[in-house]
């Protein structure tokens, strides 16, 4: 909690707010709409027992701000342990009891409290989980897709579910199957159906693509594009930059629990000279179809205390200033970046 006390929280909030409105007008395709979801200055820590009754706080997300707009896909990329999934869990209110959440999450203009999260999730806000393990192995597919509905609505939901299955070319016999009888691609379509049937407005897809072959991958991505075209806000959490670039509008790059850059899709080209943060550039240049070049070092462990920029250790352009305090998130070239060197 040390680094939070140093900055004046109110002042920081204001600067962030200005940036957000600025960004919304420049790159929001002339839409001056409010963001459907606003996450401002979010911090998350877990209370852990170290030895005996001694407690420690493990900080996993710090000073994180993102926005998701209607009709847009925001991709969140970053390595494992960068806090991507925890952000999703924070939005849905499904964190374990030893989690401590600070900051503000706004949905549709009003604060998203724990009660509101519980009311919204599965209705307005839907999570598309990563794997088949999120399905109940002993329950038929159709019951899982429909969920618990009141008896009088059951017929209606059944009809809706059949329509959705037809749209996703799932055969009628699938609804009577059990999860283990589905292939990877079919599972994906079933999981997507669960989000579509509740006509959610905000869809959070947590790592929906790893281990899929090219055909199934493109198919899955097209479902998300489809949802965005229908006016949903989609948050696509992934570590596959290539997949993210195919359909997203903006890409937020996570590292060690915070956002280092929010870039536009067009910025990812050539040697990444349009990218604002050295980490994003390194991610881009490490792709096998680009240079396949790895930078040294590791993402800092969650229990390591870092005073300066979290990327300091691995950065090739570090200055003395970078060792003192986390750089502010600032607007550069129609995107955002947390780096002292960017201009």
């Amino acid at each position, binding site marked *: 909690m040390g680094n939070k006390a140093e900055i004046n929280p109110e002042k920081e909030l204001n600067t962030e707010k200005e940036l957000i409105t600025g960004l919304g007008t420049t790159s929001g395709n002339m839409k001056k709409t409010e963001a459907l979801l606003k996450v401002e200055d979010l911090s998350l820590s877990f209370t852990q027992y170290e030895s005996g009754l001694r407690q420690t706080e493990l900080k996993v997300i710090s000073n994180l701000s993102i926005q998701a707009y209607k009709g847009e896909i925001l991709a969140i*990329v*970053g*390595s*494992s*342990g960068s806090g991507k999934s925890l952000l999703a869990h924070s939005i849905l209110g499904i964190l374990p009891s030893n989690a401590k959440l600070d900051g503000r999450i706004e949905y549709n203009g009003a604060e998203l409290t724990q009660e509101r999260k519980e009311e919204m999730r599965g209705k307005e806000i839907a999570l598309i989980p990563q794997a088949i393990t999120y399905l109940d192995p002993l329950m038929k597919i159709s019951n899982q897709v429909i969920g618990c509905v009141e008896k009088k609505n059951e017929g209606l939901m059944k009809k809706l579910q059949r329509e959705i299955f037809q749209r996703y070319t799932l055969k009628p016999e699938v609804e009577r199957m059990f999860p283990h009888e589905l*292939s*990877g*691609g079919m599972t994906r379509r079933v999981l997507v159906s669960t989000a579509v049937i509740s006509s959610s407005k905000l869809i959070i897809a947590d790592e929906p693509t*790893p*281990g*899929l*072959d*090219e*055909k*199934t*991958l493109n198919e899955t991505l097209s479902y998300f594009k489809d949802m965005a075209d229908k006016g949903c806000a989609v948050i696509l959490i992934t*570590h596959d*930059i*290539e997949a993210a670039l195919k359909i997203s509008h903006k890409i937020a790059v996570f590292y060690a629990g915070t956002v280092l850059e929010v870039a536009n899709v067009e910025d990812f080209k050539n040697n990444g000279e349009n990218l604002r943060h050295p980490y994003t550039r*390194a*991610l*881009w240049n*490490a*792709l*096998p*179809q680009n240079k*396949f*070049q*790895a*930078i*040294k070092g*590791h*993402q800092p462990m969650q229990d390591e205390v870092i005073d300066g920029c979290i990327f300091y250790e691995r950065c090739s352009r570090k200055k003395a200033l970078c060792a003192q305090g986390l750089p502010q998130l600032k607007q550069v070239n129609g995107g955002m970046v947390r780096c002292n060197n960017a201009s």
Partner: protein
Amino acid sequence: MHLKGENVSFGYKRNNLILKDVNISLGSGEVLGLIGDSGSGKSTLCKILAGYENKYQGKVTLDEKEIPPKGYNPVQLVFQHPEKAVNPKWRMNDILNEGHFVSQDILEAFGIKNNWLNRWPNELSGGELQRFALARALSPKTRFLIADEITTMVDSITQAQIWNIVLDIVEELNIGVLVVSHDRNLINRLCNDTVYLKDINNT
């Protein structure tokens, strides 16, 4: 030295084969790619080649000889999820040295820090655990490495780090590698040659 699979067939049910008469050959020092759709039997083939699955038809040979069922297997398989391949109740030090004592050179090559050795598996990230899995698989007695989607779950920087290290080591030790991945760009970057596994048919 050659690792060969000849006329390998496998199915969980009698009349539903996943692999049918597959032939595959991998030479020492060769880096071979294996591509196929989900469910085409890539991982099953990997398990058969590495001796994890015995109820198959056909032959798997190492230089025309069958692989001995006991002792150190010169064909080592590394999986997609390292967290499922380690004992969660062991410290990393024990996990690393379970099969043989991993040399300091290998540890340094993989950038495994000494203070990681005292940690539990759940205190390391997937990329870090995968380094341990590879370090313990690349013993001096290993002749072939089967890499089943080993970098699917890590970011691009970690992927490049891991593969650059693995390629250096296998070149030095003259180990043959089978690279399984859905990422054609990765396969093109790493492999001399590629095998396509079609649904229920030959390669």
